[in-house]
Each structure stands twice: as C-alpha cells, then as structure tokens.
C-alpha cells in the first residue's frame, strides 16, 4: 500500500527541491518533482536592465559557478553585437572560468559525501575550496559572485604576485586531490553506496538530454570546450574525461578528474598569457537580431538565447540551464529504488535548484 511522502523542502538534505515519492516499504515506486521554490524571475528582469547591469544578476542564477554563467551571457551579448575581445582578455576569462569550475566541482563533491554521512570529505573539500576562493578574491575582488567578465573583456588585469600564488595553490591542489581519491573513492563503504546506483545507459542519457559530466560518465564523448571551442580553449591542451559505467560513482569520478584537468588548463593559460589590452569598446545599444550561444559550465551545457531590440535592454533573454535538463534524469532514475539511494542520485547528478528555477 504505497504512501505518499513529500521528500520536501523542509528537509535537511533536499535542497530547494520537493520530490513527491510513492513509497512502499522501502522501495520508491514513482516520483514527481515540484520545482519553483526559488524562482526569482531572472529572465524577466533582463528586460529592465541594460546589458552591463545584468551581469551581477546572471551571476546570482548560480552562485557556485558564477563566472561560467556570466561568461555564457556575455558571449551571447558579444555574438549579438558582433565584437571580439582581445587575446589577453580571452585567456583571463579562461582562468576565471576554470577556477570557477574547480570551485563548483569541489562543492559538488562536498555535497555528495554529505549524503553518506561522511562529513570528513565535506569539510576537506570545503577547506580546499577556500584556497580557490582566495585566488578568485585576489583576481576579481569578491569570493563568490565575481562580476569579473563583462561585455567587452574583463574588468581588471591580474594583480602583482598573482602568478606565484596561483602556482603555489595549484601545485598543492594537484597533490592534495589524490588524498581525496584514497579517502573517498577507494573507500569501500562509499563504493558500496554509489556503485551501481542510478545507472544511466548511453542511449538513455542522450534521449533524456542530460548534459555535462553526467553525460560523459555514461560514455558519450562530448564536451563543448573541445567540440565547439570558444575563448582560448582551442589553443589550450586538455583531455576530456569519459567513463563508461554511468552510475553515481562514475559521475563523481568524472568530476574528480575534471578538477585535475582544470588545474592543467589554468597553468597553461598563466604561462601563455599574451600581452595586450584587456577590454575593447562595445556599441552602446544592442542591435536587432537573435543569437544562441552555448558554453560548458561546471554542471553542463549552458545555452543563452538573446533577442536584441535596438535599445540597450534586450527584448527577450532565455537561459537554458544545465540543471533543468539533468532534472529529467533524476525523475527517470528514481523508480523502483530503495529510499536511501535518492540523496545519492540527486547529488551525484549535481542538480542545483538555483538554476532550475532561475
């Protein structure tokens, strides 16, 4: 006799999502997701802010991955205007975006280990995230919502002493993440909890529209940074991490290896940083027309569709958020599973309700 449980908002582990579960004993038969708790109307706000003023707003769409979201929006605006930023600005944008990606992946790992009651990994990941936040603070002026990438380039050049400090932090982090590997990924209890849980086959992942590290954990070799390169990614050398099993362990592992790849990218970008201006002039008004651009954020593929109106405020802005697409995977996977698997699947898909609801 199934009872309906609200794995809901007033719950210590659910984030901002309500899942209505039909539970029979310990088995969840069916789920329905109820989103909209943190809807702030960001797309409508865009019609009342000009294109520079909107950058702080779009960063709050997902504040653990702020620079990537800002980059997506700014690239859409620049594609509409038809301008191209100088080379130095491209490399600086790559540095900010990759630091933001490391931040997002460390946070995802912290949350996933919290679901197993494994507070040790949560605190360790948060400690190391502090070092990255310190770097971002030196670069841009704020820890979480950087407001560093704006249409036309970046806001400021790298400060003195940044390169040495960045090399210190990145060298330390490269050694440190192998501690995580030994403590978390080779921990038999964590493997029991996540291996074989929430398996997405390759066909299912493509059909449902899953993006990002979740897609790459199911065996699909697709990364926007390599296949549709933007900024300076075509000049930088990195690998795309692909795993085959498609379970929660594989997804966590893909994020873990992506941290190592991001460190490699940042080191190359710091070494190859060309000289030149960091900002170029933008036209004062958005021309008429429409574009769609996409980038790879920490959670998946972010698409921004903008319709220019001839004034400096857009006529329509639509954000295609990665977590919204991954939510379809969550609803598809939470059928006929024991109830203890739901937090594990939810956090291994790295769904943050802030960009589902916008």
């Amino acid at each position, binding site marked *: 006799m199934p*009872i309906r*449980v609200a*794995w809901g908002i007033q*719950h*210590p*582990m659910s984030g901002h999502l309500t899942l209505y579960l039909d*539970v029979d004993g*310990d088995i969840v038969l069916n789920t329905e997701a109820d989103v909209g708790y943190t809807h702030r109307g960001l797309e409508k706000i865009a019609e009342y802010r000009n294109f520079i003023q909107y950058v702080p707003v779009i960063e709050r769409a997902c504040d653990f991955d702020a620079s990537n979201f800002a980059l997506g929006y700014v690239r859409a605006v620049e594609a509409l205007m038809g301008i191209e930023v100088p080379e130095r600005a491209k490399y600086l944008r790559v540095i900010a975006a990759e630091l933001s990606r490391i931040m997002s992946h460390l946070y995802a790992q912290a949350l996933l*280990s*919290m*679901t*197993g*009651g*494994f*507070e*040790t990994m949560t*605190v*360790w990941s948060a*400690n190391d995230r502090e070092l990255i936040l310190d770097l971002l603070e030196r670069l841009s002026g704020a820890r979480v919502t950087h407001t560093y990438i704006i249409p036309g380039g970046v806001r400021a050049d790298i400060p003195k002493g940044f390169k040495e400090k960045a090399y210190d932090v990145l060298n330390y982090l490269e050694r440190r993440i192998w501690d995580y590997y030994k403590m978390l990924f080779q*921990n038999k*209890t*964590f493997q*029991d*909890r996540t291996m074989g849980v929430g398996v997405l086959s390759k066909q299912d992942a493509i059909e449902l529209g899953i993006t990002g590290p979740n897609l790459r954990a199911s065996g699909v070799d697709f990364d926007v940074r390599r296949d549709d390169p933007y900024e300076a990614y075509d000049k930088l050398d990195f690998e795309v991490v692909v795993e085959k099993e498609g379970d929660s362990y594989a997804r966590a592992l893909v994020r873990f290896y992506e941290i190592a790849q991001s460190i490699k990218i940042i080191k190359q970008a710091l070494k190859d940083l060309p000289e030149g201006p960091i900002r170029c002039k933008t036209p004062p008004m958005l021309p008429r027309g429409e574009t769609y651009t996409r980038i790879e954020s920490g959670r998946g593929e972010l698409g921004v569709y903008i319709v220019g109106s001839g004034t400096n405020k857009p006529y329509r802005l639509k954000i295609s958020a990665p977590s919204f697409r991954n939510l379809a995977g969550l609803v598809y996977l939470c059928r006929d599973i*024991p*109830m*203890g*698997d*739901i*937090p594990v699947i939810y956090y291994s898909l790295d769904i943050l309700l802030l960009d589902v609801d916008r």
Partner: protein
Amino acid sequence: MNLPISLPTLPNIPGLPPIPLPVLPPPFDVLIEFMQTSEFMEFAVELSLKLLVFPGLAFIMLYAMLAVWGERKLHARIHLRIGPYHVGPIFGLFQLVADGIKLLGKEIVTPERSHKFFYHLAPVLIMSLSMITLAFIPFFPVGPGEYWTIYYSEYSLLIILALFSLRPFIMIMAGWASNNKYTMMGAMRAAFQLLAYEVPLMLSMASVVILAGSFDLAKIVESQANMWFIVPCFLGFIVFFISTMAEICRRPLDIIVAEQEIVFGPWTEYTGMEYGLIMMSEYVDVAIASFLTSILFLGGWHGPGLHPLVWLLIKMGILSMFFMIGRSTWPRLRIDQLLDAGWRKLIPLALVQVFIAIVLVYVLKVIVV
C-alpha cells in the same frame, strides 16, 4: 514487647511526664530495628556508593563529559577543525554542561495527535535501559569471590543479552507514538537492524561462554587470567565489535538515525531534555559496549601492576576511542547493505568461531573449562 533497643522519646520538659513516640505496629518496628544494625548500614553505604559514584551517576556524568569532549575533538581534528573551544578549562571540556543547560531551557513539545503517554515514556525508558545494563557488570574484585557490582548474578551475561533485546521495542514505541510517517518508517528499520544483529551478538558471546564454562561475567574474567580470550577468539572479537556497533546504532551503521539523511529516524520529534536523554543514552551505550568488549575478550581487570579498576578503565577508554574514530572514517551503509552484512556475512563467521571454540575445549582439550 521487649525490644533490644530503646525507642526515642521526646526531650524532658519539666512539669510534664515523659512522652514516648508512638509505637509502630509490626512489621515496621522490626524493620526499623533491622535498619539500625551494622550489616544493613554497611550494605546501604556500599549500595549508595555504587549507585551514586561508580558505576552510577557520577561516573556516568563524568564519562559522558569526557566522551562528548573527546569525540567532538577527535572528529574535529580529523576534519582539520578545532572542535569545542570556549567552555571549560582545557578548551571546551565542559561542553556537555553547556549543552545540558541549553537543553533544559528548551520547551518540551508534544506533537498534536501523538499518543502522549508512550511518547513521553520512550526517552525515559531508553535511558533507563542503558543504565540498568550497567547494574549487572562486575567491575573489579573486592575479595575472594566478591565483586564490585550492583547485583551479582550467575547469569549476568544472559540478563545483559535480554536487555539488549528490549531495545527495538522502545524504538518502535517512540516511532509509532510520534504520529509521523518518517518516524514510523525509521522505527521499522530500527527493528529490522537490531533484530538482524542480535544473532551474531549471541553467537560471538556463545563462543566466549564455551571457553569459559559459565554465563557469569566474573567467572569469564577469572578464566582469562592466563590468556585473554581475544587470542583464540579473534574472529569472535571482530564479530562482537561490529554487532555491538550496530546494536547501539553508531556510525557507520546508524542509518536509522540518519533516515534520508538527518531527519533522525524514530527520535525526530523530541526536543528539550528528552532529546538530551536520548543523546546521553547513546554515550552510556558506548560505555556499556566498551565494558562488555573488554570483559569478554580483553581480560577485564587483569593486568600487571596497577589496581584492577585502573586496568579496566584503560581498556574501556581505548575501545571507546575506536567507537569514536569509526564516526569520521566511513560513510554510512544503506539499510539493505546493513541487513545483508548482518545476516549473510557475520553469522557464518560467528558460527566458525563457535566451532573453533568447541574444538579447542572438547576435542583438543587445550583449554580447560
């Protein structure tokens, strides 16, 4: 009647005849006479010492304070944090006192449609159950054949096992009386888990009983005078340690109090001092488990040089630390993995251990019962 003692009288007021206190009917006068004998006085003093100092109230409070401090400090240091810091002489030693005062000041909430009697009874019962178990454990010898224990019985191990078996009922009582779907599910899982781990518990205890030849905990310790039972019963030690960790619901085997992550299982609806009682009972349970493990497998109070009580406390302290390290090192197991481990992996190991014990005692006659 002729009494060998004189009843007290009121003081002499000049002018009035001496007024004796009323003579009580039997059996009260015999009782008062008995209570004034020296044997009863000695017994009363010893009993109140046991109940109030060791292993009673004062020891429990002191142990809980040290255990709370030690666990949180160790947990924090593994996390590269500091832990309790402000309250107390050595950086936070009195954290339990501060928490206790805070919890006393909170309101005890009764959910609206709960069964009030059982709801308020459950935390009291779980604390009492943990503390009653301490009454049957012998701690150190005070003479030939005499031990420091509140109630000495020849079947003390059986009594303790029976008390362990009462725990699921109290959890079900708490979970059902709270009128909440989550707590009911948590209580059902608690019943499954505690039931599953009782069988390995009994079997590992059985191997020790075979080697020692009696159910009396004191005799079990006496027969470890030459060799601690951990040497022939190493498998049994492992099984017993894991089973007690599951019986007292200690991380990593505490899925029932981390039901869908931290809605606290059958104890969700408790606030204030009832929550304090539940938390205290967890630490008392750790004390009991450490005492039992050191008595059954590690030789109890045997050890060169120091007073037997000191040895027992040292062994118990080290075992408590092992219970606490397990909290920060492994994630939790899911309920079906827990049950799988209990039924399918621990019972065969315990049976092998019982077989080894039987062979050692009756076939090879290596150990003399």
